[in-house]
């Protein structure tokens, strides 16, 4: 069945926004380019393939996306396609896990001031502070300097801090390792100057 005739008529009577006389080809092209924006490779994170994409409707369709920082990612309804039941269940587990499990063997989020992406690490993988610090320094390509109980991390741009069960921000290294493992909820690599306020005020 050939519907070209009908379709042509449809077009004429179609209610649309946009100037009359704008042709279909143009529409199609801009539509498909918008929808198939390439990822902004420039912004991809250091290690694994990142999940950077532009919002579906963003961009002006040009190929020079590389220098544009990605806009905030919009959450698309029903994507990824996971049943609501499963989605809630796993979220609940993740939320609970950090509080209920006594062995603290969960991933904790690590952020660094100025870096666009968080990382997650599994604290139990490390056995002592030096191992953890080395891993963090490698992950974020920064240095922490010498740790001393009195002065914290001296002579470095960044200092590792963590938030404990009570919600307080502490300097990493102030408490015994095992206590740290079981009370650490998340890590934050602060700018050295900001971290000066911590730890010393007991």
């Amino acid at each position, binding site marked *: 069945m050939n519907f070209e005739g009908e379709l042509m008529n449809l077009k004429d009577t*179609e209610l649309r926004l946009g100037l009359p006389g704008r042709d279909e080809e143009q529409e*199609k092209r801009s539509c498909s380019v918008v929808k198939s924006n390439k990822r902004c490779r420039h912004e991809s994170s250091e*290690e694994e*393939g990142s999940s950077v*994409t532009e919002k579906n409707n963003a961009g002006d369709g040009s190929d020079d996306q590389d220098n544009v920082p990605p806009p905030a990612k919009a959450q698309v309804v029903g994507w990824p396609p996971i049943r609501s039941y499963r989605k809630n269940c796993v979220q609940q587990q993740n939320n609970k896990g950090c509080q209920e499990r006594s062995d603290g063997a969960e991933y904790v989020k690590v952020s660094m001031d100025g870096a666009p992406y968080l990382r997650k690490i599994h604290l139990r993988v490390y056995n002592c502070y030096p191992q953890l610090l080395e891993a963090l320094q490698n992950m974020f390509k920064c240095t922490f300097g010498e740790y001393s109980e009195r002065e914290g991390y001296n002579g470095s741009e960044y200092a590792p801090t963590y938030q404990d069960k009570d919600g307080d921000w502490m300097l990493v290294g102030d408490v015994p390792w095992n206590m740290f493992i079981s009370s650490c909820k998340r890590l934050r690599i602060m700018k050295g100057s900001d971290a000066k306020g911590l730890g010393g005020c007991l």
Partner: protein
Amino acid sequence: MECKRKKEWPESNDSNRPTTFPDEVLERVLSLLKSHKDRSSVSLVCKDWYNAERWSRSHVFIGNCYSVSPEILTRRFPNIRSVTLKGKPRFSDFNLVPPNWGADIHSWLLVFAKKYPLLQELKLKRMTVTDESFEFLSLSFPNFKVLSLLSCDGFSTDGLAAIATNCKNLTELDIQENGIDDKNGNWLSCFPESFTSLEVLNFANLHSDVNFDALERLVSRCKSFKTLKVNKSITLEQLQRLLVHAPQLVELGTGIFSQELTAQQYSELETAFNNCKNIHTLSGLWTATAQFLPVLYRACANLTFLNLSYSTLDGDDLAKLLVHCPNLRRLWVLDTVEDKGLEAVGSYCPLLEELRVFPADPYDQDVVHGVTEAGFIAVSGGCPRLHYVLYFCHQMTNAAVATVVQNCPDFTHFRLCIMNPHQPDYLTDEPMDEAFGAVVKTCTKLQRLAVSGLLTDLTFEYIGKYAKNLETLSVAFAGNSDWGMQCVLEGCPKLRKLEIRDSPFGNAALLSGLEKYESMRSLWMSDCNVTMNGARLLAKEMPRLNVEVIKEEGINNSKADKIYVYRSVAGPRRDAPPFVFTL
């Protein structure tokens, strides 16, 4: 001569013809046929066979509840004992269908109560069921035995209480992943003390605590228990007691899998598991840790299906467990196991046929972990019999998928979800067309395909050209133009279900499938380029199709945001809510 002979035979009674089986014999023979496809074929042979088939059919499967009415159904099949009904379009699982859309079971139950009073089984998927319906069901069918609910909504645990209280012959109660209002666990205590027939109980996806004593008594007095899947509220200690009562279990879903146990309790738990020699399906395992998994090791010897999709296990712990599961055929995991875990799968599970990897943190956009193309390749290398895969990942390459299908050419179900829409091959930056091209070219038995990533019309050209056995296709954020969808509609002779979202297919594509849709179960298109006029044209040309557009009230533009097209012998819906426009 033939004419003369015909005149001599008495009229109207066909079974007098010597060449025909008597009805009773034919019906008896046909009652042995279980496959619906076979039965459909049989019913087309001739009128006798049609009649014999309809009288002998005891189970009916209805893939779309609106394709037929309960009146038509009961008129054709008078002796049904078991009904499987599916309701809403599949994308309703992902919140793309507004609530109160329909697929309410009640009108069916009213007719069944009159026409099928001996109904024994009801299996529902994506239907709306209210507590009143459950009450009605429990009181209307004295022989009721099997109730299975998957992805249904509209009810609360009160409805389950009615079932437990009134269904004296119940053998199976299977409540999976539903939108249930979980008020409390009292329903479990409603099974009367005299009730002993239960064989299958699955309440894994309910959250409320149940009365453990009631559960323990139930399990110990129902001697034929073969499937028990408990929920998170059941501890390891309690599980041990249940296993002691039912070592014959074939399918087990544990509760929470970590607890402070004494050495004695740990040992008792291990013994209880060791005594379960028939377990072939294992699930549950919430918060399972390395500390407790060893109690399972011996029980896993005959395991064929392991569902760890609610367990945040890492790769090492999974590896240690899989060493003990050499007979595994089906494995569901979370992507916390990462590629390392999948390497273990490839190493220890050579008989694997099905793998599903779900994302633990699907919405955590800042963090990238999970599985990659490396894990996928590792599994395919070690598991040549793999034919079903559901794989959620953040990155993939065309080369990897090509390798996977080369290792496993027998895929029947290939569902790949690259979680960021429009994401290209992360190494070459090219579209993922060649990946799916490889899939359809190599896997000639492919029945179900879900595509993702950056895809042009080329993907759909490949699908139309090669996927000759394809029955179900799911498309999201893909394609460039109408041409893509047209290729699929023209090229896939066995296509039954097509569901598309957020793709640039419009009226021309929709209308190119005019003659196709009557041979399909349904078509879903949402957030594509179809307009109301296009939908109306389709409805006008194809009166035997139901063409429904879901539009939010008050929005009066010309777009057909969500269109659902399906064949039906029941005519247009009479229960459509205001936001569903039947064209």
